[in-house]
């Protein structure tokens, strides 16, 4: 027990030290900016020090943040699930057919390298300013790492393992389900980790262009920015960061449960 506590401390200490440094830097920044406390009532105008984050968070503001969080969270989550379904399906399909791969790959690259902020207004024009448009933006930014990692993972199964399944006269479906996808799962999870963060970015960046309806975190942060409400703006940013971190941790937990027990060096 004591050994486990010591190990936990050893693992937690370095990031906690960095957190301390960040908070210290944050205070230093807040108190070194000219005019940050020019309002005269002690509240910050530009960068609130950490202890002032929740100053000015009244019920109405909290309601807006809660609604925006729900919109961005649900967009990122559903978009991420769709990106997984589409990404894995595309990766598997391309692993089966070189022709399909050569037909699709350049276009997938083109989508990947085009900044999502350029595509978002086009998507809203085509799909309309709906939840579907938010999902489309999220899927477009998040699916590619899953597709490329699935393709690479499925193709990288050793020939020896394929021979075992060939001798067992496995069907293509059996080979996919019982051999290729499990063998590719460490690689697929590496793609999921990247895509989890991208899905949150897609949900929030896409939101900047939605001028109607209840705002998500992206548009809400611009409102707070324009109103010079630094405290709520920082809280909103921290929530967005927390959602991204939560997605990353969720994928890491799933990997730890499903892959780590057997995927040892």
């Amino acid at each position, binding site marked *: 027990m004591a050994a486990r506590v010591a190990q936990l401390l050893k693992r937690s200490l370095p990031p906690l030290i960095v957190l301390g440094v960040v908070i210290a830097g944050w205070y230093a920044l807040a108190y070194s900016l000219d005019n940050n406390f020019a309002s005269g009532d002690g509240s910050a105008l530009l960068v609130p020090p950490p202890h002032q984050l929740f100053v000015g968070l009244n019920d109405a503001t909290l309601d807006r943040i809660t609604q925006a969080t729900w919109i961005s969270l649900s967009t990122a989550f559903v978009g991420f699930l769709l990106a997984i379904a589409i990404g894995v399906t595309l990766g598997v399909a391309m692993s089966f057919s070189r022709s399909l791969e050569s037909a699709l790959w350049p276009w997938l690259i083109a989508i990947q390298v085009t900044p999502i902020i350029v595509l978002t207004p086009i998507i809203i024009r085509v799909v309309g300013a709906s939840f579907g448009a938010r999902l489309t933006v999220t899927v477009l930014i998040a699916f590619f790492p899953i597709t490329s990692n699935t393709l690479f993972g499925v193709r990288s199964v050793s020939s020896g393992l394929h021979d075992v399944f*060939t001798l067992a006269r496995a069907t293509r479906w059996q080979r996919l389900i019982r051999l290729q996808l*499990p*063998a590719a799962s460490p690689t697929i999870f590496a793609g999921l980790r990247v895509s989890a963060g991208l899905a949150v970015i897609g949900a929030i960046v896409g939101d900047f262009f939605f001028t109607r309806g209840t705002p998500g975190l992206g548009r809400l942060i611009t409102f707070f920015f324009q109103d010079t409400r630094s405290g709520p703006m920082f809280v909103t940013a921290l929530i967005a960061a927390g959602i991204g971190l939560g997605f990353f941790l969720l994928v890491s937990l799933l990997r730890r449960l499903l892959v780590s027990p057997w995927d040892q060096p």
Partner: protein
Amino acid sequence: MAVTAPTIARLSGVHHHFDGAVVLSDVALQLGAGEVVAIVGPSGCGKTTLLRIVAGLISPARGDVTRPEREIGFVFQEPALLPWRRVEANARLLAASDDDGIVEQLLSVSGLTEHRRKWPYQLSGGMKMRLSLVRALAARPRMLLMDEPFGALDSITRNRLHDEFATLHKSRGFSALFVTHAIDEAVYLADRVLVMSEAPGRIVREFTVPFARPRTSALRYSPEFASLCGAIAESLHELAGGA
């Protein structure tokens, strides 16, 4: 190449090439039911290719191959285990779903019962090889093919696995064709030893192993055993152009 038991596999006039380089030329062999046959030969003579042709993993460029339609087991040079399945699940991979008994028996004979809940990465090299053998035999093959299955193991582990293989062969009665670089291994395990020439590989010599079964480790130190090993080694030496 006389085979007294009914033939389970037969190759005649088999040729094969890779990218224009001929690797097998006019290969003929027979494997009798219940027989154990070893193939020895210099590196690169096409032994593995021959084994894969017998298995049906490669179609020969020319020649006739007769083999069981199903019920072929293969033990590869590498254990080729599924890392995401525990020992027991790997052992059951190719077994019939209602054939629990054989998996239990094979795990027991191979000393893996107490390791059944382990992942493959937790096993030693010898244990992985045993598991690979168990997996192949759990499918109740009529014909077992093995490609240098014991080549990566230390001599103590290898000798122990030889005896485990002999025990399994006695109890299950399958036919076996295996490739090896170790002449003593070929003589200890096989009923016949086939010698292949350098590439393009052909079977150029055949040695019948006269030792009764079950064979014990004492056989390895007998003059007759050494004499037969010496004759096979000399044959290989001659094929390599030695004096």
